[in-house]
C-alpha cells in the first residue's frame, strides 16, 4: 500500500530533516514539516508512481509546509523572527556554539532564496542545474543567489570570528 514510501522514509528522513533545519532554522519545525510531508505522501494512496522524483516531491512539500506556516502567522511573528534573527544560533540546537552552529545562525539571516540555494548546493550536494530545477529558477539566477549568499555568509562569519576573538582576548 505504501509502495516504497517506508523505504524512502528509512533512507531519506534524516537527510531531509537536516536540509529543512538549515532552511527553517528550527529542527522542531523541520521535523514536523518532513513528517507531515510523509503523512501527505501516504494520502496519495499507492500512487507514488505518479511522483517523478519522490525525494524532490518530499522536499518541495516540506518546504511548502514550512512556508505556509510562516505565512499563516502573518507579518507579526515573521517580523519578530527577523528582528531576533541576530540573537544567535537556534535555541533548540546544542548548547555548545561551534563554527557549524555559527554557520547555521548565519544561514538564518540570509534571504530565503539565497539560503535555499546554498543548502541545496552545499549541504545536499546538488549540482547547480539540479538546484535550479528543484527551486524552479534559471541556472543564472541560482548562480547569482549562491554568489550573493556566499558573500553575505563570509561577512557574517567574519564578524562572528572577530567577535569571538575579542571575547577570548
Amino acid at each position, binding site marked *: 500500500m*505504501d509502495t516504497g514510501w*517506508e523505504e524512502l*522514509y528509512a533512507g531519506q*528522513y*534524516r*537527510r531531509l*530533516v*537536516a536540509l529543512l*533545519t*538549515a532552511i527553517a532554522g528550527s*529542527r522542531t519545525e523541520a*521535523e514536523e514539516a518532513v*513528517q507531515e510531508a*510523509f*503523512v501527505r505522501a*501516504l*494520502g*496519495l*494512496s*499507492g*500512487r507514488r508512481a505518479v511522483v517523478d522524483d519522490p525525494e524532490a516531491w518530499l522536499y518541495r512539500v516540506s*518546504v*511548502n509546509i*514550512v*512556508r*505556509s506556516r*510562516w*505565512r*499563516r*502567522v*502573518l*507579518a*507579526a*511573528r*515573521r*517580523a*519578530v523572527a*527577523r*528582528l531576533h534573527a541576530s540573537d544567535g544560533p537556534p535555541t533548540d*540546537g*546544542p548548547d555548545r556554539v561551534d*563554527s*557549524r552552529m555559527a*554557520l*547555521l545562525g*548565519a544561514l538564518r539571516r540570509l*534571504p*530565503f*532564496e539565497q539560503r*535555499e540555494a*546554498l543548502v541545496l548546493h*552545499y*549541504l545536499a550536494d546538488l549540482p547547480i542545474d539540479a538546484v535550479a530545477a528543484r527551486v*524552479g529558477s534559471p541556472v543564472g539566477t541560482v548562480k547569482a543567489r549562491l554568489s550573493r549568499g*556566499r558573500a553575505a*555568509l*563570509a561577512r557574517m*562569519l*567574519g564578524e562572528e*570570528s572577530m567577535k569571538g576573538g575579542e571575547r577570548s582576548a
Partner: protein
Amino acid sequence: MPEPDFAGLRDRLEEEVRQPSFVTIRARRRRRTAWTVGAALTALVVVLGGTVSAAALLSPARTPVTGPQGTPSPAVSPTPSAPATPPTAASAPAGSPPAVVPPGSPAAVTAMTAAPSGVLFAATNGCLSGCSAAGAHTGAAVLRSRDLGRNWTTVGYPDGPAGTILLAASDAQLWLIGDAAVNSSTDGGRTWRSAMLGGGDAGDGDYAEMAGGTAWIARGSSVAVATGGGQPVATGAQPPGGTIDALAALGADNAAVLTGDSPATWYLTGDRGGHWSAMDDPCAGTAYPHSPFETLSAAPGGSVWGTCAAPPASGRQLKQLVVSADGGRTWKSRGALEPDGYGTHLMPVSSTVAWRTGPRADLYRTTDAAHWTRVAVTGDAAGGADPMFVAIDGRTGVYVEQGTLYATEDGGQSWRQRPLPLG
C-alpha cells in the same frame, strides 16, 4: 577567515535527528482519514437535523472589550438568548473522539472568501474519503455556497494543492493564490488557468486583497495586480524597502505596502504600482510608531482603519486602533485594543462597523469604530493560525475553526454550525 563547513554542518544536523518509527506516520495518516470521515458524518447529521437544531444553534461570548483609553465598553446589542459558545481548542472536552476533531488536524478548507454578491467560495484540499477509488479527486477543489454555507457545490478543480488565499471580484472572477502558482478563473471556478507568481520570495509569505475589482498580490518584496479574473502582472515599479510586511488594497488603482523593520514605512501607489512614494506613518501619534506590525484596511466610503502594535510575545500584543476619514491623510487614535492575541486583522465594512481577528485572537466587532465586542471565542493555542473569518457585511459573516464552519446573520449574537465543505 575559514571556509564555511557545510559538510560538517550537514553531518551534525543529521546526527541530531531522532527518527520516529514509520508506524507513527501511518497512524497520523489513519487519524487524518478518520477525521475527514467523522467531519463528513457530523455535517450529515447537521443537515438531517435541520437548521433549527438546538445543537447547531450556537452563541458566542460577548464580553465587552477595551475602548478608547482602555475603558470598558457597553455591549453593542442585547444579551444573546443562547449561552453556548462555539467550541475552541481550549474548551473542547478532553474526551472528544478524535474521529471528529483531533487536536492539531488542519481543516480541509484552506481558504475562503465572499464575492460582493455574498456568494461564498471555499478552497479545499484532498477528498472526502476513498481517495484511491476510481474517479475520486485528490487535490484542490473550489466550492460555492449561495446560502451562507447551508449548501455547497463543487464548481471546479484548480491545479496543484489548494492555495491559502482566495479572492473573488465577482461570482465569476476568482483567484486562488498558492505556494507555487496563482490560479485564476473567469467562469466562477469551473475552469482555471495557472501562472507562476515570479519576482518574489515565496518564503517570506503572500498577501492579497481585492479593491475596486483589482486583485493586489504581494509576495516577498514584489507586488502584482490582476483584473477580470486574469493572471497577475507585476506592477510597473516595485516598492522600495525589501520584504513586504503588510498590504492594503485601497482601490482599483491605489494600494499601500509596509516594508522595512526599523523604521517600517508605508509606500503608497495611486497608479496601479507605476510609482510608489512613502506616506506619513499612520501610527506616528501612537505608542508604536513605524512598527513592522502595523496593518491598514480600507472601508467602503473612503475611511481607512489601521492597527499600531508592539512586537507580539506569548500570545499577547499591545495594540492600538487608528482611523482616517480622509483616505489616509490624517489619522485619529481610537484607543487601545485588548492585549490578548495578535488581533490586528481588520475588516471594516463601513466608516463605523468592522470585524477584527488574527492569530491567537478572538473575533471582535465594533459598530462605532471605538468600542469592540467579542463575538466569538476563536483564540487558539500557541502556534495556531488565525481563524478563517469572512465578513460579508456588518451583520453577516462566517468563520472556520477546528474543522467546523459557523455563520452569523445578526452581527455575531448567534452562530449556526454549517456543513463544512470537504471537497
